[in-house]
Every structure is written in C-alpha cells, then in structure tokens.
C-alpha cells in the first residue's frame, strides 16, 4: 500500500530534471519535496499526476503501474501554485467539476453532487461562497476552493505544487497550519512540493531534499535539520558557517580550535565543517581554544538576533544567532570583543579534487560544552540604557 518511485529519469533538452530518483511514500504520509527552483521537484510531481512522463523508471501505487494510466485514471488530486480555477464557473461549479465530467453511469445524482459540494465548502471554511466567481475571492480563498475541487473526486493521493507560493506571509502561515490539521483529519497520502524550507520543516512527516534532479536526503524534519547528509543540505536548510579544516595529528584544526576524535583514521588531510549560527557559543571571557572575535554588527530580527563576528584567527566572518533577550542581558554592542567556539558541526572530508565526500560525514559535538556568559559585560561608560542598546542594534 505504498507509492513507489523507482529510478526515474527525465531530461529536458540538455539538463536532467530527474536523475535516477527513487522514493517510497507510506500510506497516509505527508511528504514534502523541498529544493531550489530547477531542482526537479515540480517535474517529479507532474510525473505523479500524469502530466509528464519519465524516460525511464517506474511508479507504482498500491501495486498498480501508475505510468500506464492516463491522468484521469489515476485518481489523484492536484493543487497548483496559481490555483488554476475555472474562472468561468462559480465556486460550487468548480468543486463539482470532477464529479460532473464523469460518465453517466458512475456520475452521482445531482442532489448528491450538491450535497458533497456543500460539505466540502464547509470543510474548507467557504460556506456561503458557492455562487461567487473565483475573481471575487482572495488568494487564500481561491486556494481553498482549489483544494476542495481536488478533494471532491475522493483522490487516493493528494499532490500540492507550491500551493502557498502566491500568498502573502500571514495567510501562508495560517493556511499551512490549517492544511496540517486537515491532513490529520483525512489521513490522505500527500506529496507537497515547496522551495520554502520553513514550510517543509513545519508541515511534513518526512522531507525529500532535491538538488539538480537528485534526491540528496530523505528524512524527518529533525533529521534533515540536525543531521544533514550532504554539503548541499547543510547549506540549503537553515544557515551554516563554513570552516576550512586541516589535519594535525589526530585532530582537525581551524584557527586554533581543535575538532578532536576524527573518524577517518588519518585518511584525509583536509575537511570542511558546517556550523549553524545557533551552534556557536559566545563568551565574554577566554575559554580554552576559543576564537577571539570582534562583534561587527547586530541584526535584530524579532525574537532572534543575528550577530556578525569578525574572527581574526580564521580570517573570515562568522554568523552567530542568539535570543534577543540574551543579547540584551549580555549588553553586547557592535565593536565589543568576545570569544566564540563551536558546539556542534557537520564535517565532510575533502577528496583529492577538493570536493567534499558526502558519504564520510562526521557529526561532531564538543566534549565539554562551554558555559555561555549570562552576565552583563562591564563597560567604562556603564549604564546600558535600553534605548542606547536598541539604537545600536540595527535591523
């Protein structure tokens, strides 16, 4: 009872949109396909819907060969980024479309169709909108009509192609929570394509991260975020500082900081470490091995503050995140000196060609976590008034 994609290949003139893609989706699962534009995620969805076909590979659903079936025989519901509503039909007629085009012998009775439309409009919270035309609705309402229309044919598989891409930020957040609840109620197997990582991390049971026609990693949002499998995933999901590492004996070092316990037994000489901004520990007093840094800038983005640090030992800037509240408590300001050290890192050895080797990933974490300083820094002019501090923090 699963949807299985096996070794799909699809080329568009000279670049591969899908390159040997295999994936299995469990019944009732909410899977997000996440990737930058041009990564092949929409092609994947269109192949599932029957609007595109791969050059090679198989798709089976509950043991049935999907590729041999025409779109209308697949019983999938598809929701498009730009709604794709029938603008010459009312909302109710849009929802009823999939039922009305059925051959007479399998078409429900008119009264049954009306009842189902009514029920679906209630489900998507659009009761009383049945007689309007799509042009009289807001973007969020249109997308809910599109969803009701897709659900009307009782699909076994729901496909969503960047459904919130054209909506503004607030509607998008509200609608995706609502969609998650709806999915929990219906239990429908759902494949959701998006380039918005926040959306994928928040909504999905599992995420497939795609890049240049390949699946880089499949896993739960937690796995994807905490244990990225490839350098691409490290960079695409969340933010990451890159550090170039050199082997010195049994340790890898960067600017005086040692990443101890390397698992490759001296096989590799160089490596690259990805350190998330929230995995940098800041301290006002020197801790062993920590880099001396200079706070160049503070970007205050609501609850989180992004700190731009100059680290002379590394000869590069680092970005560190901390809660705005902690920042205010520490009283840090641009120009201050402090010490910074990593607490977690994802490290890939570099091969002879200088490219990272994804299969030899090393998830490193610090043995003794440094204690972050919570006390205000002493400063000669003293009296850190909140106004002053705010004035320094630039958005």
């Amino acid at each position, binding site marked *: 009872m699963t949807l299985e994609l096996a070794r799909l290949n699809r080329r568009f003139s000279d670049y591969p949109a899908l390159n040997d893609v295999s994936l299995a989706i469990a019944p009732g699962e909410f899977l997000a396909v996440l990737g930058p534009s041009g990564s092949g995620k929409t092609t994947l969805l269109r192949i599932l*819907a*029957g*609007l595109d076909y791969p050059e090679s590979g198989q798709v089976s659903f509950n043991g049935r060969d999907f590729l041999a079936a025409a*779109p*209308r025989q*697949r019983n*999938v*519901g*598809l929701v*498009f980024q*730009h709604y*794709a*509503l*029938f*603008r*010459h*039909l*009312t909302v109710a007629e849009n929802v009823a*479309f*999939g039922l009305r*085009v*059925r051959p007479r012998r399998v078409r429900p009775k008119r009264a049954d169709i009306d009842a189902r439309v009514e029920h679906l409009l209630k489900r998507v919270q659009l009761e009383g909108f049945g007689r*309007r*035309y*799509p*042009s*009289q*609705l807001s973007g969020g309402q249109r997308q809910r009509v*599109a969803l009701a*229309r*897709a659900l*009307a*044919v009782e699909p076994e598989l729901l496909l969503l192609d960047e459904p919130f891409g054209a909506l503004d930020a607030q509607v998008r957040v509200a609608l995706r929570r609502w969609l998650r609840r709806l999915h929990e109620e219906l239990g429908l197997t759902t494949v959701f394509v998006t380039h918005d990582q926040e959306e994928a991390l928040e909504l999905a049971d599992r995420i497939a991260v795609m890049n240049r026609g390949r699946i880089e990693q499949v896993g739960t949002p937690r796995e994807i975020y905490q244990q990225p499998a490839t350098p691409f995933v490290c960079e695409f999901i969340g933010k990451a500082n890159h550090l170039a590492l050199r082997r010195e004996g049994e340790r890898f070092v960067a600017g005086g900081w040692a990443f101890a316990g390397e698992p490759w037994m001296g096989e590799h000489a160089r490596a690259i470490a990805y350190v998330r901004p929230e995995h940098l520990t800041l301290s006002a007093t020197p801790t062993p091995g920590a880099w001396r840094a200079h706070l160049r800038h503070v970007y205050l983005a609501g609850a989180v503050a992004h700190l731009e640090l100059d680290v002379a030992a590394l000869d590069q800037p680092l970005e560190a995140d901390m809660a705005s509240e902690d920042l205010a408590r520490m009283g840090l300001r641009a120009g201050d000196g402090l010490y910074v050290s990593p607490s977690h890192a994802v490290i890939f050895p570099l091969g002879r060609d200088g490219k990272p080797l994804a299969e030899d990933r090393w998830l490193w974490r610090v043995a003794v976590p440094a204690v972050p300083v919570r006390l205000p820094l002493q400063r000669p002019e003293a009296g850190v008034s909140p106004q002053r501090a705010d004035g320094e923090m630039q958005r």
Partner: protein
Amino acid sequence: MRRRHFLPGFNLSLGYSLTYLGLIVLLPLAALAWKASGLGFDGLVRLLRVPRTLAALKLSFGGATLAAAINVVVGLLVAWVLVRYRFPGRRLFDAVVDLPFALPTAVAGIALTALYAPNGWIGRWLAEIGIKVAYTPVGVLVAMVFVGFPFVVRTLQPVLESLERDVEEAAETLGARRWQVFLKVILPMLAPTLLTGFALALARAVGEYGSVIFIAGNIPMKSEIAPLLIVQSLEQFDYAGAAALGVAMLAFSFVLLLAITLLQRWSHRWAESAP
C-alpha cells in the same frame, strides 16, 4: 474625493474624443439619415417591400452571418494551431493570415472569381461534381468568408496565448476527457472573444463591396447584395433611395451588433471582479 487620473486633462481628452467621434462617425451617419428622411417613412417601407431589395438584404445579412459563423470555426482552428504548435513556417503562415486585410478588395474579388469560375483552377473540379460557386450566392459567401477571416484569428490569438495551461491540466486530473476539456473549459473561456471576432467578421462581410461584386455575378433576386443596389441607385441619381437603403442596413447592423454585445456580456459575466 476627486479621483486622480493617470493621464492629466481628462476633460480635455474626453471632449476631444467625443468631437472626433462625432465628426468622423456620427456626422456622416446623421447626413445619411437626413437624406433618407426626404423619402418619408411610407417611402422607406415601400422601398423595402420591393422583392428585389428584400432579396438583396437577405443575401447580405444571411450571407454575412453564415460567413462569420464559418470564420469563427475555422479561425479558432487556425489561431489554435498558430498559438499552440511550433512548426517550420509558422511565422510565414501567421503573416499570410493578414493578407485579406492588405489586399485591395477588387484584386481579391478578381482572384477569387478566376479560381472559382467554371473554367478556373478550383471551379473546374467543382463544376464536375455539379457545384457552381462563381456567379451564385455561394460565391458571395466565399468572398465574405475571405474578407472576414483575419478578424477572428487576430482577436483570438492573444486570448489563446494568455490561456493558462494549468487550467486544462487541472481539468484533466479531475477526470475530464479531451473533448470535455475543450467543451467545458476552453470554449466557455473563449466565448466572449469568439463573439467579438464574430461581430467584427459579420460587420466586415455586411459592408463588403469590392470583392463580392466580381464573384457574385450580380443576378437580381439571386446573387445581388444590398450595397450593390445602393450603388445602382446612386448611378440613377436616386439619392434618397440610396440613403434609405443605407439607413435600413445601418439599422439592421445596429440591432445585430447590439444583440451580440449583450450576448457577449452575458458570456463574460464571470469576469466582473470585486465582491
């Protein structure tokens, strides 16, 4: 609150537009009506009850309506092919569509006559199976189709281009067959544009003179169009009679176009925005 317009001088430009419209369109028409009024209402009715006049009006309007209908069907097909398919020579094909616009109508008429005459390239073969085109009402129809053709194609093209493919794909995944997609999705969305094209092609065919008179043979009661009767009246210095016929044609055209506009508005009701 006063509405701000993008262009300044709204009053000036509106006044200018109305004056221009009055001078170029309404004034000649008013003169026509004034001239016809010399005949009086009874005179007009008497003129219109002449069988020869009636037959000519029937041919003009019946032929034009049929020609516009044919153009809508063929024009939709041609526009579809030009917009949806990429093939060698598409640009050339696209340019050829405009030829009936550009060709002097008399040239078109003579060319069509040469083709469809019983000894012409096409007429010869048609004559063998017993179909006469030149010098019959069918010939009139052929000429009317020819001159009206570009209107439908050119009005449809931009609309077809802006038609979103997702909408068709959505219909397909919802279970619609190809013909259902066409009948229930594409055609209703194109209906307003098809009606515009129909109206333009109709208006052009009703008013067509040059190309029709060459191929029609102008046999009274059979293949004589109303504009020809007007010219004949003029040649006999019957200005009032000519004007009366002109007014009658104008009234007919007006009613027809009004009906089409109403139909078009109804078919476009979904586009009225704002709740």
